[in-house]
């Protein structure tokens, strides 16, 4: 029924022509701006998974990662205490209440694209949850789990 919603169609028409050309230009410029940043950060979730799996000497296990993520390892918090379960939604810092970007790459494309950040937050947060640093195998499992999540 194409005639059913003339106001909406009118608005669509208003956006065609020069406006859509400007939008296309914006996307092009945004892509140019983002591309060098992404390559400067220099990694992808898949590459990080490969790094931890190589260090562990075995591939990541998404099922083990899911269980690991939801468990309080004898302490007060689990990973999910701040990042939610499943972490496809924005999380929340368990003590300050500050919003945290979703951890799953499918919901937050910038996640796991900076190796130094990945190492820094695994180090800090594993100490918060497990009172020790995580092993390469544990990191591979968690990352395999996060990469398996789809919105």
């Amino acid at each position, binding site marked *: 029924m194409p005639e059913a919603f003339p106001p909406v169609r009118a608005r669509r028409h208003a956006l065609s022509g020069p406006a859509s050309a400007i939008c296309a230009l914006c996307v092009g410029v945004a892509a140019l701006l983002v591309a060098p940043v992404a390559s400067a950060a220099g990694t992808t979730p898949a590459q990080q998974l490969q790094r931890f799996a190589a260090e562990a000497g075995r591939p990541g296990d998404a099922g083990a990662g899911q269980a690991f993520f939801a468990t309080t390892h004898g302490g*007060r918090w689990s990973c999910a205490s701040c990042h939610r379960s499943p972490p496809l939604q924005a999380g*929340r*810092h368990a*003590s*300050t*209440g*500050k919003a945290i970007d979703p951890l799953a790459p499918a919901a937050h494309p910038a996640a796991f694209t900076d190796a130094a950040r990945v190492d820094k937050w695994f*180090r*800090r*947060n594993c*100490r*918060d949850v497990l009172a020790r640093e995580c092993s390469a195998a544990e990191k591979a499992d968690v990352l395999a789990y996060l990469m398996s999540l789809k919105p």
Partner: protein
Amino acid sequence: MKPSPALGALSMALALFASGPALADGRVQMPRDAPPAYAAECGACHTAYAPGLLPAASWRRIMAGLDRHYGSDASLETGDRDRIAAWLEANAGRGRRVADTPPEDRITQSSWFRREHRRIDAAVWAHPSVGSAAQCAACHGGAAQGDFEEDDVTAPAGLPPSLQRSLRH
């Protein structure tokens, strides 16, 4: 719209005469020369607090114990840590208001903080859109710029009107 030269000169004069980072009323100046790591690291977990909210001795202790930071590991690279610590101490609160180090070096335990918030209902702090007293921006939209003016306070999203009344006093 260009600011008038007279206004510019006035604000410069005010900036020159401001004696320290903590100003009267509800403004605590956020120095413009914050190390980039301050917002990126500290601001990742909580409001990037204006340094004038705590005295230098509190900042020194906090920055010396980041691996055990109020229940979290907030450790930093030495370079970032030193730059942030130096900046916090250089711009720390000096006035009468922040003369004493608060219990546990917590801003929210400072006598001025408790006094200013004494009428806030406990249910406001616990409300899902606030979460904790560390979430300044839940009510103080200009917190990141050091604006804590009472007139600029807005009710957190979804706060019932019965609780909104306690924000005004």
